[in-house]
């Protein structure tokens, strides 16, 4: 038995794989490099990713205005879940490295949120991903940005990290008369399926503008603008639509970056009060069923200690029948109680010719 147990335990241990990766991902969030060691078990045991990581951003951007940055990741060869996590960082020190630490403001992340770490699934066919952020540039000066990625491996044993080199970006103050989007304007980053999104463009130093949109990477199409408003086509399924504005005014004409509007499929939804009510009902029912369960052990215990067949109470209550008393009467010195118990033995001895 013990030998079998050892064999089973050994097989179980042998079948497990030591992995520091997290194939389910960690979710989009504001994170420092390597999540401070919390995403992959031990950063010291991570492998170096063979993926190519490139940053696409203008060398020069206007201070306080919107710009986009794209991280291109190719050949990551991630785990079975195909998840690749990408960080947008300002340095590789592992602390105080989020864009906000250097004055960048995230307007939209690749998934339509406000995180500097996002996860996306890499397709099996191309194994390439592009992560695009919309940022508001910080104050003028030299700034740096870099990308880092996290992913698992096919075998699932090792977690991988990858980093891009630091990219230097000159942030310069825009000319006063530069046609621009208003400082208060934040482009919407996501919408629901079936939603027709109307955007009111807020501008400064702009005499006129035109807007065009495209499906991700497609050919630009002009949009009708009326009273500074334009409407993006209805989203019929999940995907990304991009739009940009061409601004004309006194200063040099400007073209905004492509702003992404992400449409995601409705997540799984449940009527939470109904679920909580059912959970509570199951709790009460479970407790009630257990409490009302009649113990079978009472009868079984009684049977265990029941010695009826071995020890008949009838024998106790009904003493043996009185042997016939000889015509000469009871033997000398005997009383009736003695006769009752030993009388039959006395008679048997008499029959055998013995004497008491």
């Amino acid at each position, binding site marked *: 038995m013990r030998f079998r147990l050892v064999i089973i335990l050994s097989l179980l241990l042998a079948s497990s794989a030591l992995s520091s990766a997290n194939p389910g991902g960690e979710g989009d969030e504001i994170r420092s490099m390597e999540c401070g060691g919390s995403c992959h078990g031990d950063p010291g045991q991570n492998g170096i990713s063979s993926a190519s990581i490139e940053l696409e951003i203008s060398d020069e951007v206007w201070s306080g205005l919107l710009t986009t940055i794209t991280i291109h990741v190719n050949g990551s060869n991630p785990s079975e879940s195909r998840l690749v996590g990408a960080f947008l960082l300002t340095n590789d020190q592992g602390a105080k490295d989020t864009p906000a630490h250097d004055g960048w403001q995230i307007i939209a992340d690749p998934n339509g949120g406000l995180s500097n770490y996002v996860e996306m699934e890499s397709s099996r066919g191309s194994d390439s991903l592009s992560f695009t952020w919309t940022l508001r540039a910080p104050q003028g000066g030299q700034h740096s940005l870099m990308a880092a990625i996290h992913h698992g491996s096919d075998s699932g044993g090792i977690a991988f990290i990858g980093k891009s080199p630091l990219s230097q970006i000159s942030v310069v103050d825009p000319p006063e008369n530069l046609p621009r989007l208003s400082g208060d304007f934040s482009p919407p980053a996501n919408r629901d399926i079936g939603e027709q999104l109307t955007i009111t463009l807020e501008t400064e130093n702009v005499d006129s503008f035109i807007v065009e949109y495209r499906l991700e990477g497609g050919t630009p199409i002009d949009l009708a603008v009326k009273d500074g408003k334009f409407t993006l086509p209805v989203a019929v399924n999940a995907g990304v639509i991009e739009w940009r504005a061409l601004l004309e005014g006194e200063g040099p004409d400007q073209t905004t970056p492509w702003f992404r509007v992400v449409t995601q499929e409705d997540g799984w939804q449940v009527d939470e009060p109904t679920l909580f009510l059912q*959970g509570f009902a199951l709790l009460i029912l479970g407790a009630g069923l257990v409490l009302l369960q009649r113990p079978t*052990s009472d009868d079984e215990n009684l049977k265990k200690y029941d010695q009826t067949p071995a020890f008949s109470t009838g024998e106790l209550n009904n003493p043996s029948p009185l042997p016939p008393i000889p015509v000469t009467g009871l033997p000398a010195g005997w009383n009736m109680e003695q006769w009752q118990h030993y009388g039959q033995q006395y008679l048997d001895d008499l029959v055998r010719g013995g004497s008491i």
Partner: protein
Amino acid sequence: MISSGTLHVISTELVVGMFALAGISFLMCALDKGPEARESIAHWALLGGLLATPLAIITGVNAAPGDGLDNPLLANKLLLSMTATGLSLGLIIKWKRGAAIDRIHAGIGMIATGLIMTTASIGGEFSRGETLLFFLPKEIVFLFPKWASIIILILGLILIVKSTIQHRVRAGTSIS
């Protein structure tokens, strides 16, 4: 500063460890083997697991990405853990009332442990995307309509009240 995720791991290990101990002790009770203290160990471990469960739930809710119950795995975790909690509470109350530990009692204890283990496994699948229980239909949530839940709730309350009355009658009889 400790993140909710780390705290959740700690509290989950407390719950799973306590329930695992309870489950093994209940198994010993069912087999009628092991130390005499197995009954006490089973029920006290069950109680310990129940006490740690709220901490695990709170830290789990804080650690989970997104808002609310937006995943069928989370919904199933809720239903399984609530059922296990109900069974465990019933077992502990019954034990404190002095009921004998028969095989059905021990079997229910093992079922409660199994439900908690399944809950923990689903949690692992939710966070890590891996599971040994790949054969379970965890993406399907058996959600009753409200009226059905209310009927179940009333039924459960009736059972509890009835068992309490029976217990008091029995206790009164044994005293007299």
